[in-house]
């Protein structure tokens, strides 16, 4: 029996809705084969096994710890293994205020990550400086690195962090294989000064 019970008006669970099958990408099915785009298959594999690098600096980091804990388990989405080495991770989760002193460190960690890499800015401070419009706080990490998803909140609830993570999963699933070598991506990185 669960040791903790706060739900004082419990609803009976419905078994039929509880288990769902993942959707296969569009393709041509035949007798013993399934043909689809390579990018869909690769995207499906990548999005369900993102390994995040939690770059937790302040209060949002504690909400991330709550998200990783058993109540709001993030490992259901494939990120069982959080890594702290940039080389081994796909997703840089920047959680918390980034001060100007910390910005070069963040940039260095981003540069050390191997392609393909995505960035999620969790919290108001990482998105735009938050409530700290001061001389020492970087007003948003998109001043130094390109960001894919912004999660607002101060701090965002774990459900909001999971929602941001699911949006990253959508982006990963639909990404074209050629994106990282395209001209557009190169100009994006050059605008940040990253080769």
């Amino acid at each position: 029996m669960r040791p903790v019970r706060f739900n004082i008006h419990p609803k009976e669970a419905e078994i039929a809705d509880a288990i769902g099958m993942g959707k296969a990408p569009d393709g041509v099915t035949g007798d013993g084969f399934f043909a689809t785009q390579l990018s869909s298959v690769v995207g499906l594999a990548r999005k369900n096994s993102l390994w995040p690098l939690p770059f937790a600096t302040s209060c949002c980091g504690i909400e991330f710890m709550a998200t990783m804990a058993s109540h709001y388990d993030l490992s259901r989405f494939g990120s069982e293994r959080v890594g702290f080495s940039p080389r081994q991770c796909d997703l840089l989760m920047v959680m918390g205020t980034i001060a100007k002193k910390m910005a070069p460190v963040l940039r260095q960690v981003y540069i050390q990550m191997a392609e393909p890499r995505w960035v999620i800015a969790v919290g108001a401070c990482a998105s735009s400086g938050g409530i700290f419009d001061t001389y020492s706080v970087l007003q948003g990490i998109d001043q130094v690195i390109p960001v894919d998803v912004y999660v607002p909140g101060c701090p965002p609830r774990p459900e909001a962090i999971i929602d941001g993570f699911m949006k990253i999963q959508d982006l990963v699933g639909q990404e074209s294989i050629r994106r990282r070598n395209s001209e557009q991506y190169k100009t994006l990185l050059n605008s940040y000064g990253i080769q």
Partner: protein
Amino acid sequence: MSLNNEIIQEKLIAKFGDQVGQFAISYGMLSFEAPKEMNLKVLQFLYDEPGLEFTFLTDICAVNYPDQKGAELVVVYHLHNLKENVRVRFSVSTSLDNTDVFTATKLFESANWMERETYDFFGINFVGHPNLKRILNVDEMDYFPLRKEFPLEDQTRIDKDDEMFGRG
């Protein structure tokens, strides 16, 4: 007889005469001032004197009063006598042109970083400090941000419009 504000005041006046002054009691805490050359002597006296024994340094901070010409920067020490449970506040003032104040690190180890923080925010030069460099701000910063003359926001930011925040 247990320690109270009158005894502290009497002992200080008995030792230093009229060099300590501006005695005031605010919300139960005695506060007084002394010239900045005497700060170590006063701190040592408060530390050693049997009956006073303020051996715990709670806090060092500074305040910038731009209107008090000649005494714009005031360094405030909060001391605590743990046995008798009495606190006292001691302040020294210095002007903007000559910001030298003697360091309290030989007496209290905790003064080390507190003085670095005070230097970082206000520019007070603590003479004799083992490692006086900026602690919280970036090392390349060339001004002392908590002085009243400098603004809170970073003036070079482009994404926030001061007009909209009522500060245009």
